[in-house]
Every structure is written in C-alpha cells, then in structure tokens.
C-alpha cells in the first residue's frame, strides 16, 4: 500500500516536472523543474531497489547535468525570455500529432500486448555485486566508457574554444 502511494506521488511529480520543463517559457524555471524530474526519477529507482543507480542519478543528473545546463543558459540567450516571440517552432502542431500518434498507436499497444512478468522477486542489496560485475566481465566496457568520457571532455573544451578563436580571426580581418 505504501509502495503504491509512493509510486503514484513520484509518478505525478515526474510527469508534472517533465511537462513544466518542456513547456515553460522561462528557461531557468525549466531547468529547476527538470531537476525535480530527475529527483523523482531517482525516487522511482529507489522504489525498484536499485539504490546505487538512484545515488548515481542524483550525483550525475542533479549535480552535474543540471548545473551544466544552467551555465549554458546563462552563457547564451536572455534568461527570462519575456518577449512576445513564440516559444514553439513553426511545425509545432505536427510535432504534437506525431507525439500523440506514437504514444497511442505504438507504445501503449506494445505494452498491452507484451507478455509481461507479473510479480517481482525479492532481491538482495546489489551494490557489492555491481562493483564485482564491473570488474570481472565488464571491465573492458568500463575502460571504453572512461575513454569516451575523456574524449567527450576534450571534445567539449575544443568545440567551445575553437569557436572563440574563429571569432577573433574574423574580428582581426575586419
């Protein structure tokens, strides 16, 4: 019973958070709604007994991605966006139609027709086993992932830096 109440509360918070994040005109408010969405998803992971993933979700998404998005917004557009310009793109209607069609005709029937297992088995805390798995069969994946993260970091710095150099060259020419 408690589980069901927790699930419904977290589900409603997640859906509302995602909706506000996607629809809000003020981008800073949007990012904070997105952080609430990430937090409620972390709660859902806890409800599914994936405690390590819940912690990682908070660390990576709320701690890193949220702050990164905040900085990106402050570095780019006017923050409040209170002008009269439209928030949505020109083809927004077809985007809405495509979304509804995908949800009603693709995802829902797929879920309802699938032969899903009904009951969850009791499981033990999984953090220790997770660490051992990462070391024994999945160590190559872990290393490749580390390499990818390093490459992404260097790539991000290079992409953000290179644009500034181009601009300086242009201003020198003119």
């Amino acid at each position, binding site marked *: 019973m408690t589980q069901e109440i927790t699930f419904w509360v977290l589900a409603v918070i997640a*859906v509302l958070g995602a909706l506000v994040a996607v629809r809000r005109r003020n981008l800073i408010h949007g990012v904070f709604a997105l952080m609430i969405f990430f937090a409620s998803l972390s709660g859902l992971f806890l409800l599914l007994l994936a405690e390590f993933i819940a912690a990682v979700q908070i660390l990576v998404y709320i701690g890193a991605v949220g702050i990164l998005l905040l900085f990106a917004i402050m570095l*780019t557009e006017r923050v409040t966006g209170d002008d009269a310009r439209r928030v949505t793109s020109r083809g927004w209607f077809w985007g809405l139609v495509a979304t509804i069609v995908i949800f009603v005709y693709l995802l829902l029937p797929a879920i309802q027709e699938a032969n899903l297992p009904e009951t969850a088995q009791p499981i033990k805390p999984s953090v220790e086993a997770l660490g051992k798995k990462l070391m024994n069969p999945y160590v190559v994946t872990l290393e490749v992932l580390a390499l*990818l993260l390093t490459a992404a970091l260097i790539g991000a710095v290079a*992409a953000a830096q290179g644009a500034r150099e181009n601009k300086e060259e242009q201003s020198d020419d003119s």
Partner: protein
Amino acid sequence: MTLEHYLILSALLFCIGLLGALTRRNAVVVLFSIEIMLNAANLNFIAFWRFSSNPEALHGPLFTLFTIAVAAAEVAVGLALIIAVYRHFKTVDLEQLDTLKEE
C-alpha cells in the same frame, strides 16, 4: 505495482520529451528534452530488471550505468556545440539557424 505501470509511466515521460524536442525552438530546451527521453529509457531498464526472472545478473543497473555515462558525455558535447553555435550566429533559436536553406 506491476511492471505495466512503470512501462506506461516511462512511455509517457518519453513522449513528453519527444514533444519538447519536436516543438521547442530553443536548442537548450531541445537538449534537455533529449535528457528526459534518455531518463525514461533508464526507468525501463531498471523496471525490466526488477521484474525479470534473473535479477542476480544485474543487467539492468549495469546497462543504466553505461547509459548515464554516455548521456553525461552527450550533454557536455551538446552544450559545447550550442555555445559554439551561439558565438557564431548570436542565437540558439533553431528556426534562425537555416543557413543551408539559402533563401
């Protein structure tokens, strides 16, 4: 709670993310819509793992860990690209970034 509840919730979240990615003009909002979609997929992985017949194998959490790492890399590179685009065009409005159209 049954697996179906989690799957429907995650499908709903995925569609909200898709809606944002398809209908917003600001590139940053499109990026965080993509994050919402990735998170919905993560919820699916964890839910399927919890209800699977062999949860000891830990496929769900492992896959989710890898997805989160790739998503973090994607956000870093995506934001760097958005900042580079902003420095060049002075806007992140996706409707104004239509140089290839040649009007």
